[in-house]
């Protein structure tokens, strides 16, 4: 058993939305709790707008959380200690085209975290560290003096990953880190994430909407719906025996790249769209689209309960 690295407790992230004279609260993340062990990968899946990216950003305090606690390695993350904390927690962003400064050389992009945290004593040492990082993510030393526009999507994502690794973190939030890449390149980057984890022992919070990618890379998966985590389980367990009706339909909606399976698949197609987070349904957030909805679902919000085997699910009916 490896030890607990990150604990998120009742994290809430509300955004104020002004409409006319009223100010509404957009509950992007509402009471989310989870833990990640050292060297482990937790996958976070859900549809767009369910708050998965917000969770990642709130954990790193890119937003100031409305409520709840983030405890990293035994210390609570606060505004005061976040700078030091970010030496150990980093982020890889979704879009490799807009998350890198086009006017900086690769060398300086990767070196910037080193500058911020003062992690070198001489220019030579900085250069040496940068080159080592570039080698780690599979870039050539000659790329150091180039600008970002000269690279392809996959290579840019490598630069982004090298930048995150520069401070030698023990936890990285990967926010849709492979979604913008073509399949053939995506596999390269996924393999790299796995290799780096073996080599350096980093833990990932791997946020993505592609379930096949997430189940491949994660040990455990959390499923989010409208700001709530509705189910957490070991990834094999989740894929083979989902409990929550939302997870069930999400899994059945994933197109399987195998014609025979695809033809025989029975699909649970969800009716309608995701409700607006401004007008959240009472009780269970999923009840408006759920097949098993009862009166209790409208009245009370279900909590995550243990269903054995480390499988947690928040549903009254299942």
């Amino acid at each position, binding site marked *: 058993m490896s030890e607990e690295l990150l604990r998120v407790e009742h994290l809430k992230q509300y955004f104020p939305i002004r409409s006319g004279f009223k100010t509404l609260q957009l509950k992007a993340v509402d009471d989310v709790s989870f833990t990640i062990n050292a060297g482990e990968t937790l996958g976070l899946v859900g549809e767009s707008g369910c708050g998965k990216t917000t969770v990642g950003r709130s954990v790193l305090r890119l937003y100031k959380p409305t409520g709840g606690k983030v405890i990293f390695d035994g210390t609570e993350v606060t505004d005061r200690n976040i700078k030091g904390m970010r030496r150990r927690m980093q982020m890889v962003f979704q879009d490799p085209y807009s998350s890198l400064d086009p006017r900086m050389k690769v060398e300086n992009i990767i070196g910037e975290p080193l500058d911020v945290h003062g992690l070198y004593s001489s220019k030579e040492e900085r250069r040496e560290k940068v080159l080592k990082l570039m080698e780690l993510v599979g870039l050539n030393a000659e790329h150091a003096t180039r600008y970002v526009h000269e690279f392809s999507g996959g290579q840019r994502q490598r630069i982004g990953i090298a930048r995150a690794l520069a401070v030698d973190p023990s936890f990285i939030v990967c926010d849709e880190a492979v979604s913008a890449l073509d399949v053939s390149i995506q*596999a390269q980057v996924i393999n790299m994430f796995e290799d780096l984890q073996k080599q350096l022992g980093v833990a990932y919070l791997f946020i993505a*909407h592609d379930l096949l990618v997430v189940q491949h890379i994660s040990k455990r998966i959390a499923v989010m719906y409208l700001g709530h985590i509705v189910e957490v389980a070991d*990834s094999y367990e989740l894929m083979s025996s989902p409990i929550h009706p939302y997870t069930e339909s999400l899994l059945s909606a994933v197109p399987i790249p195998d*014609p025979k399976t695809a033809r025989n698949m029975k*699909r649970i197609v969800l009716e309608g769209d995701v409700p607006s987070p401004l007008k959240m349904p009472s009780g269970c957030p999923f009840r408006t689209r759920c097949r098993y909805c009862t009166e209790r679902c409208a009245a009370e919000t279900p909590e995550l309960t243990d269903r054995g085997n480390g499988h947690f699910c928040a549903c009254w009916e299942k």
Partner: protein
Amino acid sequence: MADEQRLLSVQHLCTSFFTDNGEVHAVNDVSFDLDKGKILGIVGESGSGKSVTAYTVMQILADTAKVRSGHIFFRGEDLLTWPERKMRAFRGKRCSIIFQDPMTSLNPVFTIGYQLCEAIRLHTDRKGDEVKARAIEMLRLVGINDPDKRLKQYPFEHSGGMRQRVMIAMALACEPDILIADEPTTALDVTIQAQILELMQDLQKQLGMAIILVTHDLGVIAEMCDEIIVLYGGRVCERGTADEIFYNPCHEYTKGLLRSIPSVSTMYERLVPISGTPINMLNLPKGCAFCTRCDEAMQICIESVPDELVINENHKAACWCNVRDRKAKEASAE
């Protein structure tokens, strides 16, 4: 008989873009046939020429693009020789297209109803209330509740899935023979994607049109298509029925592509990616477009472009490895 079933026949199509950096051969000698009631899938990575192929059929290319050679026969007539007037009647009436991004393909300053009725008024003889009735009928067909109310709303009042439904309604309003769907579900969530794919399959059965489905998602292709063509670097690598492509891939690129997608059964195994980076379309290799990334590449792959070799009646692949294997087989037989 076969000729009557054949709606579209694209032959040796070459489309180029003329940019400041030189000529980009986006589509290189692409041929395919489309029969009535069939779903043809075009797969490839970004920049493989799949969308440009679709746009060439519709003749909606940018000004910098030019069809260099080839023919596109629609029911036996080459539409590349048609004047713009005739083309305009073809688009929407005979062949319509759904674009990738439902957020930008509807005009934000007109109501859904106006945009939908416009298409119907232009291409059919319906007038006045008939047009509106047809629009309502179409919206109902694609599963939009409260169509009367929806007609008066603007695109921003609809979610992504709804807008894509409106696009489909618009595309199908004139009962086209061919529907081109260019990444119709890429911008949507999986649960909404499932709804839209299901809808397209239902409508296809109901109305009997042919669909060209352009996508990079092999999962979507596996589910929807009868026949598949795989593009790489603007050329056809492999073509065949869905089963042939997925269970008996013969081109190294297709094999690599299938190996590199994660699946439930290979959960704890390492992925086998295709090495290297996507090709630069500005300077295509002289030989096979895939040769720079191919593990099996031979001298001949670098030197000349492979022809499509018939694997069986439902399957063709353009890869020198198949030629080599076949020769070896013949030699051992002798």
